[in-house]
């Protein structure tokens, strides 16, 4: 009853015209920023932060949340239209969203992305209201060992997702973890693999890796189509909506992925990337048509879109209730709140209920406004595909370089961008999946820290990694993620073998 009263009080704050305006403007700005390669939610919130300095804490937090959700929506738009995710969380949207656009189904892709994001965000907001306290308590049970094992599970699931090339998937994963080891080691201060380059001391930003691999790699790959005069993109568009059949295929993946995304998002550091990739992997494993994944399967887009928006809501839980940011974006938001004199944490809900419940209510409203804005806006954005490829590719290249500069304020990143562009092109040519590398690159730093913290806590004993039921469950999940696809492949191959033998006979 208390929850309902608090929520109604929150709505009375969030529905004030000034706050409605802020969440709408923040959402639109976030969508635009999120579409630019390299400017995902974290960068979007960071660069738009100055506009909130003159506001009160409630208004500032509502605006930042609008930008956050807007950037999540926007990141997927560029994933679908130009195969360039705005940030890591929109990565999974490239797997099937871009192939859908290439097959002339951009309208369905954009519509299902907005619908899935809306539903995912809405379900997560309901969970936030009901489960905020228990979920944060559960996330607190994750010690360094469990946290390390969670990341191992997520990485092995992503690597094993590469059907028929699992070994290559694991190679890609190790490459990503290696990239994450570059820079000054935060626990000892030792420089690792910096080669005397000052800019490498702070490490390689995963956004540079993403932009290099996806934007530059994609342009390099597209040179072939450019030379042979192939015209893949559709130039005329119909109504931005989904058919009944497409909705039928998408509804359960959307509903299944939202709780998953919410839980993953609530775990500090896990975030939207892991949530969306796990949701994608789950759907691929469960699907009746796994062969369509990567070729434009609508559920392959709907599931991660629902999960990553749900994760963006979930990520606010540890920040609001524990004072621990659950993602890069929430870290920026927490920094802004501290600047405004608000200390996020358990006392926030009792000392500043206006802020806490006003924000939660604005999640419902923000999601609705963004869905309403994004579906008609998608009709304009989709025209990006009508730009001739010979002009679009240099623009993508230009945006990539500018995005890289915005991340670090150093043109040294341009060299890395070129390097990763070439690496992405080579990996595509030798059939090495890039997704495990990207995820490993994002979680690598935290993963190593958790591993070392666990070892330190256990005085060097590896027993800590099997010391709790949660740890054992995560190990089982890791083993299962490697073994299950192999068993599934063996069972699905059997009938073919029988048919082949019969034919021979």
């Amino acid at each position, binding site marked *: 009853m208390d929850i309902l009263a608090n929520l109604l009080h929150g709505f009375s704050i969030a529905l004030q015209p000034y706050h409605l305006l802020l969440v709408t403007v923040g959402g639109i700005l976030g969508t635009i*920023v999120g579409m630019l390669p390299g400017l995902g939610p974290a960068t979007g919130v960071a*660069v*738009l932060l*100055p506009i909130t300095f003159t506001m009160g804490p409630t208004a500032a937090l509502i605006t930042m949340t609008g930008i956050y959700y807007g950037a999540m929506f926007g990141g997927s738009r560029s994933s679908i239209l130009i195969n360039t995710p705005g940030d890591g969380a929109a990565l999974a949207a490239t797997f099937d969203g871009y192939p859908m656009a290439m097959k002339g189904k951009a309208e369905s892709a954009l519509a299902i992305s907005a619908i899935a994001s809306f539903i995912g965000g809405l379900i997560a907001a309901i969970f936030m209201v009901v489960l905020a306290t228990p979920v944060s308590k559960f996330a607190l049970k994750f010690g360094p060992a469990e946290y390390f094992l969670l990341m191992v599970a997520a990485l092995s699931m992503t690597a094993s997702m590469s059907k028929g090339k699992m*070994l*290559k998937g*694991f*190679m890609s994963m*190790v*490459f990503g*973890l*290696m990239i994450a*080891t570059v820079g000054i*080691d935060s*626990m*000892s*201060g*030792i*420089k*690792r*693999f910096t080669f005397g380059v000052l800019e490498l001391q702070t490490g390689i930003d995963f956004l540079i890796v993403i932009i290099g691999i996806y934007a*530059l790699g994609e*342009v*390099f790959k597209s*040179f*072939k189509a*450019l*030379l*042979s005069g192939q015209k893949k993109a559709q130039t005329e568009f119909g109504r931005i909506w989904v058919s009944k059949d497409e909705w039928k295929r998408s509804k359960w993946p959307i509903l299944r992925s939202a709780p998953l995304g919410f839980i993953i998002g609530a775990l500090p550091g896990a975030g939207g990337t892991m949530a969306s990739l796990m949701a994608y992997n789950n759907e691929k494993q469960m699907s009746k048509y796994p062969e369509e994944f990567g070729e434009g399967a609508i559920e392959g887009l709907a599931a991660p879109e629902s999960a990553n928006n749900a994760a963006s809501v979930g990520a606010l839980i540890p920040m609001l209730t524990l004072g621990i940011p659950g993602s890069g974006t929430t870290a920026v938001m927490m920094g802004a709140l501290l600047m405004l004199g608000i200390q996020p944490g358990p006392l926030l809900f009792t000392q500043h209920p206006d802020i806490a419940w006003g924000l939660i209510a604005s999640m419902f409203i923000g999601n609705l406004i963004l869905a309403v804005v994004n579906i008609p806006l998608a009709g304009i954005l989709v025209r990006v595909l009508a730009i*001739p*490829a*010979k*002009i679009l*590719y*240099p*623009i993508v*290249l*230009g*945006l990539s*370089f*500018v995005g890289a*500069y*915005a991340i670090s*304020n150093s*043109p*040294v990143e*341009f*060299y890395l*961008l*070129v390097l990763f*562009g*070439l690496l992405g*092109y080579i990996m595509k040519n*030798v059939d090495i999946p890039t997704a495990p590398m990207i995820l490993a690159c994002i979680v690598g730093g935290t993963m*190593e820290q958790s*591993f*070392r913290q666990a*070892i*330190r806590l256990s005085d*060097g004993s590896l027993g800590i990694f099997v010391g709790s039921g949660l740890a054992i469950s995560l190990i089982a999940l890791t083993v299962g993620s490697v073994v299950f696809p192999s068993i599934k492949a063996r069972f699905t191959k059997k009938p073919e073998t029988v048919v082949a033998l019969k034919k021979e006979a």
Partner: protein
Amino acid sequence: MTTKKQTFKPDYNALMGFVVAAFGLVYLIMTSMMKRSALGDPLAPLYFPIALGSLLVVFGVIQVMRSDIKKSIESLKNLKHMNVQDQKINGMIGYTCVSGIVYALIFEHAGFVISTLLFMLSMLSLTNKKQHKTNVIVSVVFSLGIYLLFTRALGIPLPKMPFVGF
């Protein structure tokens, strides 16, 4: 013979395994040469990289063992007979990389607008040949538009042109 060349599907899996294993080995050697930590366990910053290097060597060796070495050698030999289109694509990729490097070199000296204008012109002249008027318009609009968006709307500072302050 011509038909054979046309239908030849390159297989670099064994070669890739070698490269991956060699990379893992180099990474391990570099890890062993790293400074030791003065705080706590001196080898603590090395454990994770050692595990990664070792894993990559193992994965590389497995890849080689599972692949057809002869096919990889044949694929390498076949590179000499690369068709004109593939040569052109490689040339375009090389040109783009060089343009990116030149862009990085002049970026802070010439300022965002000039360096981006030159980079865009260079790239557009590669992809949109002979359409000079369009290329100039797109380059100018892009470099000025992005400059204004970033510096005015988003508040992200970008290098200014020398003497002009823009």
